């Protein structure tokens, strides 16, 4: 292909230039605009924010940076609380996904080839069906007169229906449910490649299975664990749909705060400031995820 491209210098450059320009314009530049607008204030106009450059007097425009949004975020404890609770919810959900996803991926990787492919399809299939509808399905199950409550009452385990919908429990359940495939897939891809003879050798040398797992399988699967955790944690921090549909009205998630500032209060500059703060917090995990992506690329 290198030779193919070298005969076609124009083609070679186009292959790089087209996606490059697209991503510059629609991925990088928008962040700069968000940064810019986070330093503006609202005004009743279209668009509803003030320009940063004012051409009042003289030839040179005056740069007006309003830091009020950021000061407001710091002053109102609601925003800090929302940010912390989002990080907590995302971290706990990631841990739960790992605790459920690891044994699943481990079990799958040790099945026969035919079973393995069928189970892999079963993991991927929900991923192809509407995320919104799968969250909605839980609303039907968790309601006061929903399937779970009816079942528990029929079994006489409870007398009064448990209130589950619009609680933190429902929100965690929804997040773990929706993001579980993202945890299983990288773990499975990693565990499937493990050399079984390592474990056999350990067993021959008298190592107990659990000990062998801790000292062989777990370290070898570290890359898969980190990849899975990043794929769950980063998007879960900014999750909006699940807290809105399954969580209670008091569930403070930063994604929901951003949404409400934007759509209900029409405060675009404040919503932008929230986005900038969220991005600053997520920048480290995102970079970690990308290093991992790059490494896997080189290894494959």
């Amino acid at each position, binding site marked *: 292909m290198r030779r193919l491209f070298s005969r076609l210098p124009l083609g070679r450059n186009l292959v790089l230039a087209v996606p490059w320009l697209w991503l510059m314009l629609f991925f990088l530049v928008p962040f700069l605009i968000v940064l810019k607008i986070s330093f503006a204030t609202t005004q009743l106009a279209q668009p509803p924010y003030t320009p940063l450059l004012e051409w009042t007097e003289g030839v040179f425009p005056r740069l007006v940076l309003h830091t009020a949004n950021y000061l407001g975020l710091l002053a109102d404890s609601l925003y800090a609380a929302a940010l912390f609770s989002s990080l907590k919810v995302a971290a706990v959900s990631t841990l739960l996904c790992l605790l459920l*996803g690891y044994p*699943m991926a481990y079990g799958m990787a040790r099945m026969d080839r035919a079973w393995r492919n069928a*189970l892999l399809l079963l993991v991927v299939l929900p991923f192809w069906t509407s995320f919104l509808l799968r969250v909605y399905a839980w609303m039907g199950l968790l309601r006061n007169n929903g399937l779970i409550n009816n079942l528990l009452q029929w079994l006489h385990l409870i007398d009064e229906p448990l209130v589950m919908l619009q609680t933190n429990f429902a929100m965690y359940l929804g997040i773990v449910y929706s993001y579980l495939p993202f945890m299983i897939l990288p773990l499975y891809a990693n565990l499937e490649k493990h050399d079984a003879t390592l474990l056999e050798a350990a067993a021959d040398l008298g190592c107990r299975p659990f000990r062998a797992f801790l000292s062989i399988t777990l370290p070898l699967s570290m890359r898969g664990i980190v990849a899975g955790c990043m794929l769950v944690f980063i998007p879960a921090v900014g999750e909006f749909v699940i807290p809105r549909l399954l969580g209670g009205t008091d569930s403070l998630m930063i994604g929901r705060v951003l949404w409400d500032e934007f759509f209900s209060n029409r405060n675009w500059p404040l919503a932008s400031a929230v986005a900038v703060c969220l991005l600053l917090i997520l920048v480290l995990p995102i970079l970690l995820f990308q290093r991992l992506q790059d490494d896997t690329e080189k290894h494959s």
Partner: protein
Amino acid sequence: MSRRVSPGIRLVMWTGFLFLYVPILSMIVFSFNESKLVTVWGGFSTKWYGELLRDRQMLAGAWLSLQIAFVTACGATVLGTLAAFALVRHGRFRGRTLFSGMVSAPLVMPEVITGLSLLLLFVALAPLPFMPATRGFATIVIAHMTLTLAYVTVIVQSRLATFDISLEEAAMDLGARPLTVFRTITLPLIAPALASGWLLAFTLSLDDLVIASFTAGPSTNTLPMMIFSKVRLGVTPEINALATIMVSVVAVFVVVAGVLLARQERMRLRDSQAAARG
């Protein structure tokens, strides 16, 4: 070759699969429920499907979403394939880290951030002459393409990484022109990856609520936006029927695609073995 798996792990695994499928199955079962009470069984009925098919707004939303998803998937497949070629075949070019970063970041970026930033871009660009007058179809497609091209790139990239480059070189040595080589050798070999990339982009676009809500104009209502506004008010049997239709279509598609790809893979393997013996 099945290796020993302890009963405990087996139990967790099957519980996990049950957890993944019980909600979907319950939705399918209750879509055939006669009763309006979503969780009380009132006998078998297909009336909610009839109701759904008479809901003109819902159908209009579905048609719009399908069109958006189709254009998005085609665009994202072209862009994502170009990006994958650039990453695999261009070696170390200047700015490669930034480029691969921009390609893979949308995979994990919270949707509220992507949606907000794209909307602000569209608002800032609105005065320019080549931009569409109102936000709607075009802006949603652009936003969805930016999101989904990352998925296409990852899929095509992994296919290209295992691609035997000597096939292309052999064709060129025999005097084939570059475009002919691409059409007759490269394209057929990466076609399965392109197909799964296209399908994934299509379903992701069809499913997206958050980014579409930010980038749509006030008069544009995609299917997920309509579902969301209905679902916010509570559970309705009509949505169960819609979910069942979507799940069945996807399941049929994925299973058929899986079987076709497996068969093609087997044929390719047999051909290359035959060629090696030949």
